[in-house]
């Protein structure tokens, strides 16, 4: 049985609030952002002065001024996950990574993270990448293995610096994105705070052009199509789990893809999930892509209660989606 032993998260400290975006004079305002996206602040690896003066018109320049790389964020998150797991980097036997914003493809992000952490030189390190639903994919991927074939501890990491790909001259994506990383240590040989009940991952690549992170250019997506897909697919994922398991929203927890709060509200209203049991971070961090949902779980690590179900349903680029049903053990 797969357990999550520890989780970590990391975010940069530049805060972009809604008044800053309104003052960019790009045809949006605080009221609209709060009503339609539900985000108050988002965080960026870019200096606020840089965004203000250049609007990030040339995304290729962003990397040279960014205060943190995707690897820096990943390593910070991983260190917290290791600490919470009570293990050292040298004990990790496998590192898998997801990033839609690598600075280099060779070495891979996982290889960079493994080295920076001080993992053994022989550690297995590779990319398992689907962007936003990475938490579900990674858990499902590891869950495919015969237990005997897995090392004692596996480190999974998702990191993204999407704000470096945002065009701050256009309102379409300016208010959405934030940067961040999350990490989780899993094991089939050691029990942890959270036990996996089931995992699921699927995709519709015929629609993969709906969300694009261009290596050289600005991010673009078909916002309306992605939003509709996200709400519908998340509701489907939750309903499927509700049918099979005795999920009680008075005590169990839902974590969705941290795309925007109004979308999450549609989902929780549909499933009648009280806000007290809806954990999220998008309102003050923005959409951190594949790091968002696991970062939420990490940020609420000390609030997990015994025997609680935690439903993580994530959707996004690919188009892909997945769910993870976790049960908290006796803590």
């Amino acid at each position, binding site marked *: 049985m797969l357990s999550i032993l520890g989780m970590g998260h990391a975010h940069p400290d530049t805060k972009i609030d809604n008044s800053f975006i309104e003052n960019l004079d790009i045809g949006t305002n605080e009221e609209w952002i709060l009503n339609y996206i539900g985000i108050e602040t988002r965080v960026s690896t870019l200096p606020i002065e840089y965004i203000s003066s250049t609007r990030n018109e040339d995304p*290729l320049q962003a*990397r040279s001024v960014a205060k943190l790389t995707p690897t820096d964020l990943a390593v910070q998150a991983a260190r917290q996950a290791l600490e919470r797991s009570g293990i050292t980097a040298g004990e990790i036997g496998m590192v898998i990574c997801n*990033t*839609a*914003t*690598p*600075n*280099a*493809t*060779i*070495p*891979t992000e*996982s*290889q*960079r993270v*493994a*080295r920076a952490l001080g*993992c053994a*030189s*022989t*550690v*297995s*390190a*590779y*990319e*398992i*990448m*689907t*962007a936003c639903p990475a938490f579900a*994919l990674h858990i499902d991927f590891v*869950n*495919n*293995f*015969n237990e005997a*074939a*897995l090392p004692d501890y596996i480190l999974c990491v998702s990191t993204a610096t999407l704000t470096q790909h945002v065009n701050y001259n256009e309102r379409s994506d300016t208010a959405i994105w934030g940067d961040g990383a999350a990490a989780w240590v899993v094991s089939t040989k050691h029990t942890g705070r959270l036990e996996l009940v089931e995992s699921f*991952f*699927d*995709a*519709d*690549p*015929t*629609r*993969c*052009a709906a*969300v*694009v*992170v*261009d*290596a*050289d250019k600005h991010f673009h997506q078909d916002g309306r199509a992605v939003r509709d897909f996200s709400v519908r697919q998340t509701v489907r994922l939750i309903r499927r789990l509700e049918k099979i398991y005795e999920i009680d929203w008075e005590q169990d927890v839902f974590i969705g893809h941290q795309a925007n709060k109004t979308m999450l509200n549609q989902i929780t209203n549909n499933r009648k999930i009280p806000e007290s049991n809806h954990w999220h971070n998008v309102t003050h961090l923005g959409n951190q892509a594949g790091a968002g949902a696991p970062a939420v779980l990490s940020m609420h690590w000390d609030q997990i209660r015994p025997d609680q179900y935690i439903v993580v349903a994530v959707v996004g*680029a*690919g188009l*892909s989606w997945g769910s993870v049903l976790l049960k908290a053990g006796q803590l």
Partner: protein
Amino acid sequence: MINILGIGHAYPEHSISLDDLKRWGTVEWSGGAVNISTVLPVDYIDQTGNEDPRANRKVVSENQSDLGYRAAVMALGRAGIEPSQLGLVVGGASNPSETCPAEAQRVCGRFGLKIPAYDFSCGTCDLPLQINTFSNWSDDRIPDYVLCIATSTPTQRVNYRSGMERYLFGDAASAVVLSTRNRGKLSVTSSQIRNHLDDADLMELDLYDHARIDFSATCEWMRVKLEEELTFATGAAASGDVILIFNQFLGQMQDELASQRGATSWSNVDQRGYSMSAGPVAVLSERWDEIQSGMNLITLFAGAGLVSGHVVLRGER
């Protein structure tokens, strides 16, 4: 057991010749390459030297996904299955022009498939990684047919005004259809993947800038690792004819290693260049019709990461 039902490859239409390389700079090159496959028009390289690697996207003959798709079509054809029979597509691109969606999703989408697809890559040794992984999955978690794609256009990241990279990198894509339930032309006898992260800095493919390789250190490392992998793999091969397929990095090195063992090797690096994960698989694909029952094909990988590995394949009836 992992069975390989079909393998495909794709090369772009352009080719850099030794005369081109001489025209662009001093060639003290004894590695063997006389032609390099590239998505870049040769006259574009003449005019610009590809000094700005970000400017070439608008002139390439094909992008990574185009090559990956073509290779996949060939692999599926040889496997004798329809795309709709696939249950999973995995892969990667060494230098994608879009870092999201995943390369596997782009290629999968072209077939009109609504199935799980994601990138699953370690840089340059993807096939042993994938085979090793699937060999360790619960059989009920593996679909009947899986498509593995590797697509690589590193020439888009090469500075043709200077550096050893000019003589090395070539573009290609490869694809493999595998199954644990259905037999194919090849079966996997053994596979291995090993990581050597301490030396990872020897090779870098930056998202924006030129590719960089510490040529002499990389050659030295690769020779040692290829010899090690060959020793492991030879021990695992069944009796019968043995064909070696190396990582397609340096023809001269491969010839020497094969000669030391008195073995036959299949290679195309001198005509195609080094296309990373795609290279050795593309060689197998090009020689597909020559693969015979009982033949042992030892495919050796060593490259970026740094990672080494091997896959020993056996020709089946």
